[in-house]
């Protein structure tokens, strides 16, 4: 007993002399989405109603905050709180929020704003508040034409996302995909484009010929895709603004699986000659064609690294479909997948740190990611049939498509777009008017 008292006494002495600080390690928290309150924007007096074609949009303040809320909810990182519990009015909250009120409903962040609409201009101011610290975090304003109000909502979402997660957002983007209808044996396919939240769907082709695997250019103005126009499967370029389509190059055989280079100057694709598919590039302006792979195997699904120095692609030169990486001039081809099963559709993340892929093993399809050297393989989701992941511009979310089983009459068949977070969480169906497949994500529109 004496010894114990002595020990403790020494502890005190030692303690005061060293002026030491008590350290406690916090290694756990909760992974719940951040509770955030998105207040409907205050509509300034004298504002007119927004017109979208013939439709008149009332309550533009609520519409804008509604788009922001849906973006947050779908990201899986934020939990937008229910508006019915909001106490403060939008106009006051935007100037001087009573943080105690917002803390009561357990909000940790608050978005407020004001919108003014005139005949030819829509002006939005918004603020992001840290409710817990009771201070302002962002204050920004934007102006545009009234019918462009959705983009403002998406830009607000991106700014808030960036401030609260440290990463760039992905809400001000579009998705190009193939809209599908009809029986499984004779699918009717059209190119379609929509905002990433499903709004503003536009059809880019008529559906008279088969169209497949569209991809956005980094400038977001061009789309490249495979078309069976006149029963000749070739890679085409489509200008979204003008609607003009042109065939890429003058190849004497099928070209397919097209992508853009990161600088937007080249198209990289497969060209099938006498049954053998190799990878080629073509400069869009100079029309100079370069052959990149030289092998009797099928080489397809090429994807550039974001710095343009490397290409990952799909090849069966080992006997079965595997993923390879090579320099962009075709040299130093290296196989990177050695696991059980088949690997396909490799896509390099815009962050450069990962390659996403489709894996087929024992009759099941997986979407996964791995490092560019092939290590760290992680499977995110499993399904009867799914493939062709495409990255969001911040390299955090993957969009892909799934097909369901069908009987011999084709009943039960459907193709839908899905998205999943890099962590494997937040697997989400993306609603489309028709069935959809082959989705491709644009880069941020404002870049």
């Amino acid at each position, binding site marked *: 007993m004496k010894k114990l008292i002595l020990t403790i006494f020494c502890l005190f002495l030692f303690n005061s002399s060293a002026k030491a600080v008590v350290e406690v390690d916090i290694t756990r928290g909760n992974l719940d989405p951040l509770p955030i309150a998105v207040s409907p924007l205050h509509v300034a007096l004298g504002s007119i109603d927004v017109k979208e074609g013939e439709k008149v949009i009332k309550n533009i303040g609520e519409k804008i905050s509604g788009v922001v809320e849906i973006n947050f909810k779908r990201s899986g990182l934020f939990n937008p709180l229910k508006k019915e519990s909001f106490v403060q009015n939008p106009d006051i909250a935007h100037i001087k929020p009573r943080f105690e009120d917002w803390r009561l409903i357990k909000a940790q962040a608050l978005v407020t704003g004001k919108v003014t609409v005139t005949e030819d201009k829509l002006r939005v101011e918004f603020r992001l508040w840290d409710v817990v610290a009771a201070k302002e975090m962002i204050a920004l304003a934007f102006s545009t034409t009234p019918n462009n109000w959705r983009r403002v909502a998406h830009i607000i979402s991106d700014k808030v996302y960036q401030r609260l997660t440290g990463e760039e957002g992905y809400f001000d983007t579009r998705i190009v995909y193939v809209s599908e209808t009809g029986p499984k044996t004779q699918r009717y396919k059209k190119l379609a484009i929509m905002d990433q939240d499903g709004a503003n769907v536009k059809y880019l082709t008529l559906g008279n010929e088969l169209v497949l695997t569209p991809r956005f250019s980094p400038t977001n103005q061009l789309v490249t895709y495979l078309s069976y126009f006149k029963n000749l499967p070739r890679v085409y370029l489509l200008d979204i603004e003008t609607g003009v389509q042109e065939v890429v190059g003058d190849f004497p055989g099928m070209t397919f699986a097209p992508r853009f280079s990161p600088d937007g100057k080249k198209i990289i694709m*497969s060209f099938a000659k006498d049954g053998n*598919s190799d990878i080629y590039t073509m400069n869009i302006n100079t029309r100079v064609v370069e052959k990149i792979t030289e092998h009797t195997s*099928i080489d397809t*699904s090429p994807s550039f690294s974001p710095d343009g120095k490397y290409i990952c692609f799909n090849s069966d030169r080992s006997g079965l479909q595997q993923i390879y990486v090579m320099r962009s001039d075709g040299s130093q081809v290296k196989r990177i997948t050695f696991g059980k099963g088949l690997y396909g559709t490799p896509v390099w993340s815009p962050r450069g740190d990962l390659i996403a892929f489709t894996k*087929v093993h024992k009759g099941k399809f997986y979407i996964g990611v791995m490092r560019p050297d092939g290590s760290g393989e992680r499977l995110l989701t499993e399904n009867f*049939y799914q*493939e062709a992941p495409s990255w969001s511009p911040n390299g955090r979310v993957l969009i892909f498509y799934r*097909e369901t089983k*069908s009987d*011999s009459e084709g009943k039960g068949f459907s193709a839908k777009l899905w998205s999943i977070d890099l962590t494997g969480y937040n697997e989400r169906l993306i609603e489309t008017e028709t069935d959809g497949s082959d989705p491709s994500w644009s880069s941020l529109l404002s870049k």
Partner: protein
Amino acid sequence: MVLETNLRKILVVILASIALTACATQKKAGKMTGDVYTGTDTVEYLATGVRDRVFFATNKSTLTTASRDTLRKQAAWMRKKSSLKFTIEGHADERGTREYNLALGERRANAVKDYLMTYGISGSRLSVISYGKERPVNSGSNPLAWSQNRRSVTVKVD
């Protein structure tokens, strides 16, 4: 009394299951060898006795003995109809990635074209097109349907 009824029930169950398995094996034996479809359900005819298509194993584009037999018959008939031109379609089943399947269909169609050419059909009469997995002939999601979809079809050009 109870024992008798139970015994009878069991007997019927056993008999039924035997009949079941018999049916199952008949399906397999009659329609597929290994992975390759050998039936005639989806086959059409270019002329009497001349089948219009050949089938493949999963991920493969090699011609089986049966396929070569069909193609020899096609070549013989084509030689007689020297004014006709043909499109050779290559197809794949749905159990693979879309782009690879386009390439695979192309390979299969070309394997057929090359074989026909060795039997004296001029390459200028044969054009090739791959549909990958876009035009299945059987919409089912089962091994039999898939084997029927792994095909190369010779189509007369009008």
